[in-house]
């Protein structure tokens, strides 16, 4: 149906600035100062529009022609940072360099220290550009920069890495206590200044599949332990995650019963999911983990597309997906071609192509939601399955209502706007 070349022509991804949406929300005393073009500002406005109306703790220092012409970025940044400090009094500023400063090799990171000295506010230099494999990696870069500022320690401690909601953190804290592990510290915490100590006796455990960079950095610079984990999505993922946590501290704990209980608690959703086929378009790098738990829940997974796979970091997840075809960094049309062949019951896709896929006759679950809903751990399992089950139920219900009459509408395309179309429709 679709021809495609060897290389990627079209991808469906957002800018890595997108995680500012949940990160500035988590760290209530932060300010994200993006150094970029009007396009960066436009993206933030479009993606996080609702938040703009509430005195947002993020903004763009828009580069003008002088800046592009090679002016010292610090000169331009000083007044902008002063405005930010005066208006918002943040505890810390994340100074984000974007594509344009990277291309021009502007030393934005080098401005962090002078700005910090000038205003007495911590400044984290972060690279948040659009050259990443997936937009979620913006969080990876932010956490890397925070780890750089982590105090050294020789103590044996546990750091949970990745932005989580309070309920998700609470579960991990309770489970660690039950297992007799050290009280976990979370990065990021509620404050942008809240950076736990990391040293060679630290165990750093990532909870998201898109944090390979921060983990590699911590391991290299702090010689801490980073156990390879299955990410805590779904009852199977949560069990493997906690058992790996215990193992990292030399303990053997079985979560077998707990996993069974959680599966049982999810039965209402599982009943809807069982036997249905769900395919994943490449998006936030959550795809392998979500496909793994949905397969365990009884779904058929015709294929999983994902923007990037790290052999080591995703090793355990990949192993658990044995038998499922995985497309790494595919072209949009290669995925469409596969969808046309498999015609799954549900397609998980981001907002770029969600409506077009519905227009092609697929049932779509929009994936962006999966990055900000609390779906980690045992307590998040039911919410996770509910996101997919409710999408299926909704499509089933609408199909039933249409029943014998069938759908009367047709998807909007450019022909829709022609007068003939309207005339023909009126005539029918």
């Amino acid at each position: 149906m679709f021809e495609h070349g060897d290389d990627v022509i079209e991808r469906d991804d957002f800018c890595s600035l997108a995680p500012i949406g949940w990160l500035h929300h988590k760290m209530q005393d932060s300010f994200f100062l993006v150094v970029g073009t009007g396009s960066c500002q436009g993206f933030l406005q479009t993606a996080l529009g609702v938040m703009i109306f509430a005195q947002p703790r993020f903004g763009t220092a828009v580069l003008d022609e002088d800046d592009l012409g090679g002016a010292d970025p610090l000169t331009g940044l000083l007044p902008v940072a002063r405005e930010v400090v005066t208006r918002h009094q943040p505890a810390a500023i994340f100074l984000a360099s974007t594509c344009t400063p990277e291309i021009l090799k502007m030393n934005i990171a080098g401005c962090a220290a002078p700005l910090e000295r000038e205003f007495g506010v911590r400044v984290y230099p972060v690279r948040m550009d659009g050259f990443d494999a997936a937009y979620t990696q913006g969080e990876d870069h932010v956490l890397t920069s925070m780890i750089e500022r982590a105090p050294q320690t020789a103590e044996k401690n546990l750091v949970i890495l990745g932005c989580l909601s309070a309920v998700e953190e609470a579960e991990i804290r309770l489970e660690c206590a039950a297992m007799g592990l050290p009280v976990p510290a979370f990065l990021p915490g509620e404050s942008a200044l809240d950076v736990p100590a990391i040293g060679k006796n630290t165990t750093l455990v990532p909870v998201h599949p898109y944090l390979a960079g921060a983990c590699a950095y911590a391991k290299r610079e702090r010689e801490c332990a980073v156990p390879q984990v299955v990410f805590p999505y779904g009852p199977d993922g949560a069990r493997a995650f906690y058992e790996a946590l215990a193992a990292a501290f030399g303990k053997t704990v079985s979560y077998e019963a707990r996993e069974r209980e959680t599966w049982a608690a999810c039965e209402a959703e599982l009943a809807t999911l069982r036997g249905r086929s769900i395919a994943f378009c490449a998006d936030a790098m959550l795809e392998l983990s979500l496909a793994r738990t949905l397969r365990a829940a009884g779904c058929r997974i015709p294929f999983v597309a994902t923007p990037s796979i790290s052999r080591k970091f995703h090793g355990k997840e990949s192993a658990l997906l044995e038998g499922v075809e995985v497309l790494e960094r595919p072209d949009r049309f290669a995925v469409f071609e596969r969808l046309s062949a498999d015609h799954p019951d549900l397609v998980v896709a981001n907002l770029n192509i969600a409506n077009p896929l519905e227009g092609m006759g697929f049932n779509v679950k929009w994936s962006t939601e999966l990055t900000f809903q609390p779906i980690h751990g045992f307590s998040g399992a039911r919410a996770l399955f509910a996101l997919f089950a409710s999408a299926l139920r909704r499509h089933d219900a609408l199909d039933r209502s249409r029943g014998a009459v069938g759908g009367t509408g047709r998807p909007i395309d450019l022909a829709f706007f022609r007068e003939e179309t309207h005339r023909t429709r009126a005539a029918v």
Partner: protein
Amino acid sequence: MKLAVWSYQAPAHVGVSKAASSFADVHTILRAPKGDGYGTIMLAMFERLGVTPPLTVAAMSEATLAGAPADIGRTILEVDRRHAPRLIVVTRSATALVLQEPLEGEIGMIPAGTVRAEVMQASTHPVRDNEISAFAKTVREVVDRCAQDGHPRTKEPSVNIIGPSLLGFHDHSNVASLRRMFADIGVEVNAVLPLGATMDDLQGVGKAWVNVSTALELALPTMELLRERFGTPFVADVPYGEIGTARFLQEVTNLLEIPHDRIRNAARDAKLSWFARTVDAHALSGKRVGVFGMPSAAAGIARFLRDELDMRVEFVGTFVLEYGDWLRERTKDLTDSFVITDDFEEVARAIDQTRPDIVFGSQMERHSSSRYGVPCAVVSPPAHILNFPLGYAPMLGFDGANHLGDIVNQTQVLGLEHHLIETFGPRGQGRFAEAAPEGVDQAEPPSGSDLTWDAQAERLIKRIPFFVRKKARANIEKYARERGLRTIEESTVLAAREHLGG
């Protein structure tokens, strides 16, 4: 550098994409980092497109940073194969501009005959142009490239409608409204540009007798081009309001040399001018409004509110700075206060300082107005998903005037309702009500007066609606004092009323 959290206009490449991708047979290739391609999400989400938008991002990568060529030729070949457009418009974002890639050279090196579509590069500047100027220039460039000379004018009088696009403000409805209106006066619509225009439409764009627009700032360069190339006259006015639409159609019928009386036919469903005479609308007189938005919308709606509803224009303004003088000139008889700025805080200050009864603005003014408790009607982009209604909600033409009337009605407290509340109190107890709503009497401060009210006079005054009672009491006491009375009786109240009126 300048700190920005929100802006009225998107960058130029979004304007190019909006314009080019709105044509039915045109595909846009944007050379940019992937993040700059968020226009595809806007197209897919706001327009609810059931097809992938005709916009492909030729994404820059780490390899680009390391010096790899753009290889735009490969993207063009693939787009040509996959989407089979008739024309491919290549543009770039500010980031790509910085890289100074020789796109033109790469395009030139595509072997002849390998690409079926024509390929052109948009001439807009990614930094110096903005969304609106880039949109207007791109429509002009595509039209200039595709329009063919030598077509005769259509047999029947006809117009091109220039300006409507994907992501345009209520444009689906605007086009329907204008098509219906032109059909009613016996005028063909030769082409709508760029929304849905095919290559045939583009080639035959010179066949129209007259060009009209849905927004001058989006259409002027194209209308000027068509005047130069085909001698086609254009109408600069945009049909806002009922009288505004009639005036617009007079100009159109003059240019087309067709009878004016056809306008009556087109106006047969127009209700606005009658609405303005009905009792409901009487309360609108003198209501103070602030109007801010796209230049044509701001000018048209401010005039509509003043001329057709007798409202008072406190200020008028636009964020399209290059149209500031145009707007001043167009509306100088309506107000002497102009807000020409692209800083939303400055508009918010104007709202705060003038506290109009209603603001007509963009989604940002809706937000700013709510800060001050001022009602706001959204009549201009920047838009919200709510400005992409499923139903018929035109802003232009006679149907648009009806809809604008509804918007005014829905935004402010209804005229007659307002009147009744003022007269009888919010509980609707009627004029014989004994007491004010609970709590009100108690809340009424003691008059602290040296005068005594007897029981009958007191009963009488309590029948006056509570929110004017205090004033009435003071007036009556003033009347009594002037006449040296110490006690106010029923007769004093009646005499005072007779003397003071009310």
